[in-house]
């Protein structure tokens, strides 16, 4: 309860400092729009050159793509600070102040930044789902919607967990940004139906870096009823909880290695 109140106090501060820089908001919105436009264009250019992608039409691939943006966006909203930890803050010994406060450092990281840019992704993602969904004449069932919501929310927790784990490594190796970047880039493979990949990759994308678990499988369930939605939801929730617990454990272990710069 105390932490919820503290979180909102801190987030208010984060938003307050963002409001101070209007140019910046414009630039980040621009860069976000541009990067999404580019990926969509690239996808469209490729799909235009072929009739279907292993049997998936443009609208279907678009649906996968749009849905994949939701967990990514939710993660983006809450855990942007970990990028800085991985790339710079540990290396510069710039975390001293967090270690001097009577609050868990990992909590302070979440409370440090709230990134409203993520709302843009949520909007674009939902728009794509609706447009492609109408095109595909999707029949909406409660179970399917349920698994999508679970996939988006707990998928975000899974992405965040990976972010925590790989930024925590910075405490040991001083800088883990590039590594985190690479792991994070794998979310882009989750943007396509995993059926297009060979078996090994599919297994990796479900069990090792489970970005396929919460994007591809729920959408398959909605579009083709491949899996039992409630069972799948349970799996996603379970994976998210286990990974998040693991992430917090790894973070607190690595945190002890933090060393402020010498003199």
């Amino acid at each position: 309860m105390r932490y919820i109140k503290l979180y909102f106090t801190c987030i208010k501060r984060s938003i307050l400092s963002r409001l101070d820089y209007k140019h910046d908001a414009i630039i980040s919105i621009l860069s976000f729009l541009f990067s999404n436009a580019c990926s969509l264009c690239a996808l469209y250019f490729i799909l235009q050159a072929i009739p279907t992608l292993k049997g998936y039409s443009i609208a279907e691939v678009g649906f996968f793509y749009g849905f994949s943006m939701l967990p990514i966006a939710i993660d983006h909203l809450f855990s942007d600070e970990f990028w800085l930890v991985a790339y710079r803050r540990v290396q510069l010994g710039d975390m001293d102040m967090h270690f001097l406060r009577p609050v868990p450092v990992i909590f302070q990281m979440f409370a440090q930044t709230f990134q409203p840019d993520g709302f843009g992704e949520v909007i674009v993602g939902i728009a794509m789902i609706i447009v492609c969904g109408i095109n595909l004449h999707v029949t909406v069932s409660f179970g399917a919607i349920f698994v999508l919501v679970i996939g988006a929310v707990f998928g975000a927790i899974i992405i965040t967990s990976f972010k925590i784990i790989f930024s925590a490594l910075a405490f040991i190796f001083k800088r883990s940004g590039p590594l985190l970047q690479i792991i994070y880039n794998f979310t882009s493979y989750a943007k396509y139906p995993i059926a297009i990949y060979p078996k090994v990759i599919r297994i990796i994308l479900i069990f090792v870096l489970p970005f396929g678990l919460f994007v591809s499988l729920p959408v398959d369930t909605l579009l083709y009823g491949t899996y039992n939605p409630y069972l799948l939801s349970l799996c996603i929730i379970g994976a998210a909880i286990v990974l998040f617990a693991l992430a917090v454990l790894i973070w607190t272990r690595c945190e002890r290695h933090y060393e402020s710069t010498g003199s």
Partner: protein
Amino acid sequence: MIEVKSLTKVFKKPIRGKGVLGMIRTLFSRKYKEIRAVDDVSFDIKEGEIVGYIGSNGAGKSTTIKMMCGILTPTSGQVLIDGKEPYKKRRIVAKEIGVVFGQKTQLWWDIPLIESFKVLKEIYQVSDEDYKTRMEFLSTVLGIDEFLSQPVRTLSLGQRMRADLAASMLHNPKILFLDEPTIGMDVLVKEKIRLAIHALNAKYHTTVVLTTHDMADIEDLCSRIIMIEKGKIIYDGPLKAIKHRFGNIKTLTITVPANIDPLEVAPYSKDVDMSSKDDKVMLRFDADKVKLEDVVQYAFSSYHAIDMKITDISIEDVVKQILVQQEEAKHA
């Protein structure tokens, strides 16, 4: 309140090879050089003391302070803050200490100062009542009222330091660590900050440990000093004793029109140590034994001085003197 027992910190620094070949070699294997930044340091500090922790650059001051706050883990030895090791019980100790690093602010850069305080109030769980009374006291002592609504990035160095001091006192810590609190400030601002530290100490009986470069800081604030050089304590005791040991040493430096040959500098009295470099002549003397007036008069009558400067003994000088005396004592 603070117990430090044979505290040691060893940093490993990679030795990098020279040239391209050396670089390739470091890629595959790496040798480390050990640097003992803090070497077997022990001392106790009692409640309510103001202790100056001093030494020249790179002597190990900041490293010790950082271990005392819990953001560096000692290689060996122990720090106890109120009986707890800060680097092991970080969150518990954090409530009992306040820290100000002169070089880095702990405040949020982009938001008005008052908002920073509000966040800190939540972080340290300060009750509304305590917050109000403390803020009132801190604003009077530190005079932060005038810039409470300004974002921290727009504050001057002195203002920022006062804001940082207030922020670190908000939760009424038992111990306040100040790392170079007056660095880079002009005399008036330094004065203000010293007064504030005194007031805090008097009102809350806060134990203060401060590192500084400024001899005046020490004279104004500290009843006790701990002096460290190359990671080892070379002096721990009252300021008076050290003053007694070195007397009231001052240096008069005069500038003459042309470079002067060191041999030409005639001795004036055995109590005045004279030296010269380029176009400067330095006269070092104990102001309790020799009258400043006499020395100045002598200097101006013997040389065509075009400029003059009187300086108090610097920390570096004191350190040098202590080392020399210790060396002499060993031989004797």
